[in-house]
């Protein structure tokens, strides 16, 4: 089983690599950019009002259509007022989409407002073939003061004459500080911990509305099903293919087939195969999924 699964991954890798070679031919500068369909690009901070001297997270989230293995050219905003402590990147995949997440661990060195410019991404829009620069939202961070300021000493004018006053003042200040800390400690013990404020939802930058082609969507669906041939994925793929032919949630397969446009007639065997895979017995599921894969192969060039 493990061997067949790794074989599937290798095959998937080869398919993606071959697809990449076709999609990203070398030569011109513009064509060296990745071809992507950007669905979401945002930047957020957690917590939104960090404390001076304490590390907090800046997260850049990019959702692109299709199975993308690598995204290298996200340009971060200038972080001159923040000290960078760490940078972590990951790509995860959901049905028909890849999610790139970059988490920067930073620390503010001063209080007040810090304005961060949007993060940017240069890519070729896979649907139009045009080079585009995508931007995330800008971000304003308000850094709060952290620790109590040091206690100021009494002026030196009367220093020599009344040193005892100075010592007494110091002792009084220490006693006051100790009493304040005790009071704060007691207060916090009685009150439940306040939850951290939720981060404000990121402001999405309007992006051009572009459509993925039918075959691209079918290829995505086929890849997802091949990578994870389970009933749950069959269900998702069935929904995706049904939406491709404009089926509504209230239509059965026969409704959909009855009004299938001529251009989509070739999808009828695939729709039937997915229906079988979605509702057949567990024993029959592997065979039903193979039928779906054959049906995908029939419609994909």
């Amino acid at each position, binding site marked *: 089983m493990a061997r067949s699964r790794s074989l599937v991954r290798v095959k998937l890798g080869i398919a993606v690599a071959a697809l990449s070679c076709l999609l990203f031919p070398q030569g011109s500068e513009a064509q060296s950019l990745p071809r992507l369909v950007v669905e979401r690009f945002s930047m957020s901070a957690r917590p939104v009002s960090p404390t001076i001297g304490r590390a907090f997270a800046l997260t850049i989230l990019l959702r692109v259509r299709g199975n993308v293995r690598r995204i290298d050219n996200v340009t971060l905003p200038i972080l001159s007022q923040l000290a960078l402590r760490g940078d972590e990147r990951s790509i995860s995949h959901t049905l028909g989409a890849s999610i790139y997440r970059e988490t920067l661990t930073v620390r503010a060195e001063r209080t007040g407002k810090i304005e961060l410019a949007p993060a940017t991404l240069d890519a070729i829009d896979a649907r139009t073939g045009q080079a585009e620069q995508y931007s995330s939202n800008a971000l304003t961070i308000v850094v709060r003061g952290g620790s109590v300021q040091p206690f100021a000493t009494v002026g030196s004018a009367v220093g020599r004459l009344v040193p005892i006053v100075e010592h007494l003042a110091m002792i009084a200040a220490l006693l006051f500080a100790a009493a304040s800390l005790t009071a704060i400690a007691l207060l916090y013990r009685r009150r439940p911990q306040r939850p951290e404020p939720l981060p404000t939802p990121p402001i999405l930058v309007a992006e051009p509305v572009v459509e993925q082609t039918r075959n691209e969507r079918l290829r995505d669906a086929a890849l997802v099903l091949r990578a994870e041939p389970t009933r749950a994925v069959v269900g998702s793929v069935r929904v995706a293919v049904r939406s491709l032919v404009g089926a509504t*949630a*209230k*239509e*059965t*397969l*026969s409704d959909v087939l009855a009004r299938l446009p001529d251009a989509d007639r070739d999808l009828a065997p695939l729709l039937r195969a997915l*229906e*079988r895979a*979605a*509702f*057949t*017995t567990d024993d*029959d599921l592997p065979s039903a999924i193979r039928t779906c894969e054959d049906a995908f192969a029939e419609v994909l060039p």
Partner: protein
Amino acid sequence: MSATPRDLERALKATIVGQDAAIEGLSLALIADGHALLEGPPGIAKTLACRALAASLDATFKRIQFTPDLLPADIVGTRIFDQQSSRFDTVLGPIVANIVLADEINRAPAKVQSALLEAMQERQVTIGLESHPLPDPFVVLATMNPLDNDGTYALPLAQMDRFLLKIDLGYPGEEEELEILDRYAFAQTPLPQRVATLEDVRRWRAQARAVHVDLKLHRYVVELVMATRQESPYVMSGASPRASLALVNCARARAFLYGRDYVEPDDIRSVALPVLRHRIAFTHRLSLEEISPSSWIARTIAGVHVP
């Protein structure tokens, strides 16, 4: 080579022209081990369909013409005193047959209808102190005429619920009517030859019961039935839980009829109207607004999300 339900359908279609939906309904009732109510105007082959079904199975067939003076004993049978042996003998009524045609069931009073419906439910009749099991398979096909309502006794909803399906028969189309003339204008309507045995029917039923129904489809069935119980000025009472069971059984039978061992949403959607239409009590407002019960149910079914 054992027969399939498709062989039966082919035999029925060779005899009855232009009633494909009704033929499928009869096949479903037979496979799902249920009874069917056939409604349609006179002269559209309701009786012929029932006779043809019995002939194609080589099953015993009895026809009971329901009239206002019919008595329960005329259906289930009675005990008659035999003078020679000086004892009472039981004479079983026409209900003891594989396929029983209850023609114009709404022309008999309630106690006669009850006698029939009790036999349908219990699958046995009791005469005196003796109970007599009915043969297996036992299918009652009752007919009703929707036009002549004078002198009829409407079936109570609780009794209608005993029928698995209500099959509405309509007039055939122009081409089909021409074909009827071509075939039968100068000849007796021939009944089909036997294409399956009663043992085949019992086997089909066992196979249909084993058809897989996904849990998502159980939920779909419940949502369809619940949709008939929603607050509506047109509905007095919605479909019962028996309707949910009937929907699942009929969907299984249909899946089997189409050669599948699993149910699809289409199976449920296809049988929903014949299973539900006689199980819902509508208010007078529906007829006042000239909405047919079937169109209200069809609209309600179409409004439910398909899994």
